[in-house]
């Protein structure tokens, strides 16, 4: 299953992927494009990915989450151009107990944000645009 996709994401479909009769709690994170970023009005956003590697990294993160939290976890990330309000990412984690489901969802989301090679190019209401690089992660920064 491709986890970097260029079409609209479906949260209910991701929920179904992790459902199971022995898993009573599912936590879903849905990220959508906000209309502002650091005080500037956002009008459009484009996600660009190193797709082959991004797929491998997400798969590795999900496998690690399943081991760490004994959960079933799934995640998909949108690529290409998105309008304000569109869904950029969905992460779902299911477990018999809600604690583990919350932790696994949160951990997976954080790891994806930190490790998966995807970049965000924002276009602003004032006509400018830029690559959003949240903080310098180069090792000499």
């Amino acid at each position, binding site marked *: 299953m491709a986890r970097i996709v260029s079409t609209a994401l479906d949260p209910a479909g991701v929920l179904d992927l992790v459902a199971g009769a022995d898993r009573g709690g599912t936590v879903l994170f849905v990220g959508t494009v906000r209309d502002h970023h650091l005080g500037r009005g956002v009008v459009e956003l484009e996600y660009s990915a*190193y797709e082959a590697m991004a797929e491998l990294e997400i798969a590795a993160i999900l496998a690690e989450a399943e081991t760490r939290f004994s959960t079933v976890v799934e995640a998909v990330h949108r690529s290409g151009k998105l309008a304000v309000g569109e869904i950029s990412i969905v992460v779902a984690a299911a477990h018999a107990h809600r604690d583990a489901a919350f932790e696994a969802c949160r951990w997976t989301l954080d790891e994806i*944000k930190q490790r998966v090679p995807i*970049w965000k190019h924002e276009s602003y209401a004032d006509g400018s645009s830029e*690559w959003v690089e949240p903080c310098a992660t180069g090792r000499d920064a």
Partner: protein
Amino acid sequence: MTVEVLLFASYAESLGECSLSLQLEPGATAGDVVGELRARPGGAGLPRFPMVAVNERYAPADRRLEPGDVVAVIPPVGGG
């Protein structure tokens, strides 16, 4: 030997290319690729030790390269 280099996002914008081939001495490392790129027009903005992936997995700067390796220089990621 020849390696393939991939650039993304702001790094691709700075260097004006998304991919290129580099000729390197045998025994060259991922860090040497970064050094070559920083010496190019537009390359001064690259950090000295950016994140690097070799053949689609993150690798340290001292990773020794093989002919045909694909070296990606990874700007700070921003998914989510």
